[in-house]
């Protein structure tokens, strides 16, 4: 393998990884305030992509207006998910809530293609297919845009959690009962975190939808996203950034080397190994908090 080829795998891997971060960000946004790992994030990304496609292609609304409409719709979807599903789960064991989000994932995965058609649809963002050529390295333009959007959203999230509202959301993830006791509306906080996850799902859905088409397979982005959040730490925004880069680079460089030898398919193995090894070696991930034992 030439050095240039390696560099190309590295850069495009990093960009793909940041695109995974876009999906993973939604999971962390919810975990950081509700304390629930949202397994429906993949389907929310898919739903957002379907909505954007519906607004542009079916209704003929201009692209940027469609994206804005999708943002509003997905924020409302998040609020609704809290109101209708999660609020009923107060006081229930966490495993039941996780199963509920898994149920939502499966439900949405069936619903959107069922209503809007299951054949892949194209979502044109006008980014252009020609790669960006820097020296001898070919860089995927769409992934570059996705990576930049990811960096912006990660930065905004970091800032958000330092605000007054963001601090309240972090408090909610620590202890629901004592949040109530000092007047924080836990229900509203969780609703807002789901709404924000809905917004990040629009960014992920539109960008991924433009590169691989809009259909149910978008929801399986959940798996690399889970690898990202487990590696980075479920409650860490920095973890989304670093975890995304590592998962993306490993998932690009290792298959680049091994696929010609074994005949392909190593990327999924790499992703799953990241999940398994992290849980075995460092269950909280790189930046995830360990529970403070001091009483």
């Amino acid at each position, binding site marked *: 393998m030439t050095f240039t080829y390696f560099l190309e795998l590295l850069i495009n891997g990093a960009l793909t990884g940041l695109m995974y971060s876009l999906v993973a960000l939604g999971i962390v946004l919810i975990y950081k305030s509700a304390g629930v790992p949202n397994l429906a994030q993949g389907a929310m990304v898919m739903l957002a992509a379907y909505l954007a496609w519906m607004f542009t292609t079916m209704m003929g609304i201009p692209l940027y207006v469609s994206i804005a409409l999708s943002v509003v719709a997905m924020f409302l979807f998040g609020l609704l998910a809290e109101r209708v599903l999660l609020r009923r789960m107060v*006081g229930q064991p966490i495993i039941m809530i996780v199963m509920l989000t898994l149920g939502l994932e499966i439900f949405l995965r069936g619903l959107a293609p069922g209503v809007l058609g299951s054949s892949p649809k194209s979502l044109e963002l006008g980014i252009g297919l020609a790669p960006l050529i820097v020296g001898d390295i070919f860089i995927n333009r769409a992934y570059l845009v996705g990576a930049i959007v990811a960096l912006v959203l990660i930065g905004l999230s970091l800032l958000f959690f330092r605000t007054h509202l963001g*601090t309240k959301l*972090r408090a909610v993830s*620590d202890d629901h*009962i004592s949040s109530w*006791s*000092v007047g*924080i509306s836990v229900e509203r906080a969780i609703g807002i975190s789901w709404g924000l996850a809905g917004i990040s799902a629009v960014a992920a859905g539109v960008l991924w939808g433009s590169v691989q088409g809009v259909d149910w397979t978008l929801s399986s982005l959940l798996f690399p996203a889970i690898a990202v959040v487990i590696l980075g730490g479920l409650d860490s925004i920095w973890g989304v950034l670093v975890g995304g880069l590592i998962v993306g680079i490993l998932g690009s460089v290792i298959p680049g080397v091994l696929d010609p030898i074994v005949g392909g398919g190593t990327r999924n193995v790499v992703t799953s190994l990241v999940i398994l090894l992290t849980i075995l070696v460092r269950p909280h991930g790189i930046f995830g908090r360990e529970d*403070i034992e001091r009483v």
Partner: protein
Amino acid sequence: MEAQAAQGASAPATEPVLTLSNVEVVYDNVFLAIKGVSLEVGEGQMVALLGGNGAGKSTTLKTVSGLLAPERGEVTRGDVHFMGENLLPLGASARVDRGLVHVLEGRRIFGHLTPEDNLLAAFSLKGDRRRYQQLRDQVFDYFPRLRERSRTKAGYLSGGEQQMLAIGRALMTEPRLIMLDEPSLGLAPVLVEEIFEIIKAINANEGMSVLLVEQNAAAALEIADHAYLVENGHIVMSGEAEVLRSNPDVQEFYLGGSGKVDYHNVKHYRRRKRWLA
């Protein structure tokens, strides 16, 4: 008999901030935790609610703060009024907006946040930055140790510091009534004294009403104006703190008395309390 006499003198001199009348609470639809509790906290008054484990003290506070629901508790009878308003239809956070706050048993600070962020989290979104800084500085003035440690994670604070933070966090909601559940729990006697003095100072300086739940009856009767004694879900005695302090039964069974336990007297006392309740 003493109990009856004490009850006669129990009406607070000022208009009550908090009134519970004949409140009954049931957990899980079957377990009757408090059975007709009535009590009053007057404006600026410090009231102690004393009793042993499982007497219903914490349940009484959760009834007022609206935190029964997460534990599947329900008010099945009676009324709770705060500043003349019926509290029962309101959710927990709406009650904090009305001006009452509950410092939970076991402190329950936000362990992964810094002490300063604990304070910010409790401050209303409607408040402005100046007011936040005023309140925060006031908390740090009452609890100077918190200022020193304001940037370490709260989970690493000592037990006493966590209790201080829990009280300080509650003060950020600008309450008219603060309810404290076992602030002395698990703390060294020196710290208990320090914290109780600060509670007394907050009560005196801010004119804030206090409802103090304690197992440590000696410490609580020291600073309270008025006290209620809860046993088995009933109020069995109430009166001025001084009167209760000198009551022979209270001395014997809650303040340690002579130091030697007379089991015949315990039995006799229990039976008499049941009749009175």
